């Protein structure tokens, strides 16, 4: 961890994740005059107020125009600034994708995109505002580092890391409060390196974002009620993904369950599957997430339960997976 983050676990229970981003960027802005912030009429929602109040001349509200915002950010980066552009994940990744592709990633411009209201965290807003495709889409962009932090403190770490590394970043955070995963920022956050949250050799649960907390809860239930030791990996960086941690999990547990607040197509589960298949070792993989259907509306926690990406749903699926056999045999009947 880069050090210097002034938040504690106590703060993180009082602050929404975006508020922690807002305070982090205001803090970083004090020491780096090249940092500027851009918002498409969402400074309130994406918590850029602190930065705006401290550095009004370095804050640009571009109105409701996400494409314009990303293009402007690219031009600023080409001229030597480090812009942080923030808007809802669904609009950053889809509406402004052409600008992310050509203006930012093709030029390897030093633009940091803070994509808020990720997954179904703005659940009641409906599918127009659910960002369930963003990670899959942005993961295909050359040069782009993609991070989905587990909680507020990890968001602060990710934002600090993005500011310290030249090149484009996409950091996807949730609307509102996240369950606290870390009680200290000093747990060894490193871009591209998964964090083992729980040791285990029976099965590995690989999660990102809000699903990390749920996976840890699930691991606790699996241990207590079923005597199963589930390794939990917080795969906060989807790109570049931690191949080593995935292949180690294949070797050690042969059963992997991925959990994400995202469609099961293209996101974390797909990224993990790519590594597993290329590794050449047999392994059972179950991808939990939002199936290839529009989600109902509802509270985030209710939608997570509906999609079986809460602790209970993860436990149920892990128990299913434990019945499957990854050993080499001629009988495929137990695997279909």
């Amino acid at each position, binding site marked *: 961890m880069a050090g210097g983050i002034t938040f504690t676990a106590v703060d993180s229970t009082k602050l929404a994740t975006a508020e922690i981003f807002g305070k982090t960027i205001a803090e970083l802005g004090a020491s780096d005059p090249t940092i500027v912030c851009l918002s498409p009429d969402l400074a309130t929602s994406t918590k850029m107020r602190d930065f705006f109040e401290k550095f009004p001349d370095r804050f640009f509200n571009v109105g409701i*125009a996400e494409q314009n915002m990303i*293009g*402007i950010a690219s*031009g600023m980066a080409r001229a030597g600034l480090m812009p942080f552009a923030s808007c809802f994940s669904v609009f950053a990744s889809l509406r402004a994708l052409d*600008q992310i592709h050509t203006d930012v990633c093709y030029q390897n411009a030093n633009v940091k995109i803070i994509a808020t209201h990720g997954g179904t965290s703005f659940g009641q807003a409906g599918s127009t505002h659910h960002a369930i495709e963003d990670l899959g889409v942005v993961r295909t962009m050359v040069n782009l580092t993609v991070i989905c932090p587990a909680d507020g403190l990890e968001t602060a770490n990710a934002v600090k890391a993005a500011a310290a590394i030249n090149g484009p970043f996409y950091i996807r955070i949730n609307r509102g409060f996240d369950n606290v995963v870390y009680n200290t920022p000093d747990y060894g956050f490193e871009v591209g390196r998964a964090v083992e949250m729980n040791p285990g050799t029976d099965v590995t649960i690989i999660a990102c974002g809000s699903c990390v907390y749920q996976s840890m809860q699930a691991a606790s239930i699996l241990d207590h009620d079923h005597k199963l030791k589930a390794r939990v990996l917080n795969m906060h960086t989807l790109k570049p993904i931690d191949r080593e941690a995935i292949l180690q999990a294949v070797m050690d547990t042969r059963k992997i369950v991925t959990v994400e607040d995202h469609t099961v197509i293209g996101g974390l589960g797909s990224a993990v599957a790519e590594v597993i298949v290329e590794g050449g070792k047999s392994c059972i993989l179950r991808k939990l997430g939002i199936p290839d259907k529009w989600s109902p509306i509802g509270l985030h926690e209710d939608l997570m339960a509906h999609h079986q990406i809460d602790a209970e749903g993860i436990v149920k699926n892990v128990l299913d997976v434990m019945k499957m056999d990854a050993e080499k045999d001629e009988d495929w009947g137990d695997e279909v």
Partner: protein
Amino acid sequence: MALTKQEWIDLEIKAAELRDLCIETVNWAGSGHWGGSSSCADILTILYYKYANFDPKNPTDPDRDRVVVSKGHVGIILAPLFSMLGLIKRDDLKTFNLTGSKLGIHLDSNKVKGLDSSTGSLGHGSPIAIGMALAGKLMGKSYKTFVILGDGECDEGSVWEAAMATSHFVKRGTSNLITIVDRNHNMIDGNTEDIMALEPFEDKWKAFGFETIVVDGHDFPKLADALEKAIAGGPKPFCIIADTVKGQGVSFAAGNYKWHYGALDEAKYNTAKSDLAEYAKKRLARAEKEGK
């Protein structure tokens, strides 16, 4: 008149060389965007040889003026221009569009020194230029940013998002941003007014808060007057609508929308070369006669 006779003559000579080198590159590449390249040839010439503060020996100077060519498909005239400026080796033009070449239809800012931004997806240049202009003001620099748009790309909504923002941010830096539209009246499928009407075009820019100047985009003294007025600035950002001819200087291509992109056979190449020589001669004669 903003230009002296000698400056005008010098610009004519450079523009003639640029058009000729562009048609040579189209020939080497096998095909190319001659139409939209030739229509902005004079705009590019007067910017790079007269009004943009740009030293080819120091192409990354943080204080340099920026030029964003939003109509990114005209790489086939930008590469010859950069070659004339000494930023690209002349022989490299012969690799244009070849597999593995650093030069293709849309130039890559990470491969071509002096190119301020990669472009290609239309409607992107203005936001990028706004970002550069805002950054300049914030960093205490006085550089200007020029953005060259095609008229066809003004169908893109992002052009108008940017137009609104250019006016809005005028006190925060976009007073140093000069928008130039290459109004060549044609796009891939036909005349702009048939495909998606732009007129009343100048009124649109005015409505978005611009001070507008409509000028003959192939007339250096008039372009110079317009640019000097725009560079002097005012309370509103400037948009110069340069009335141009797509395919200018080549008889079979001038004004013909079908020459947005095309290939030259030997006969067409020969015609193009002699047409361009004749066109350059006429323009030079006018400069010599009317220059002061």
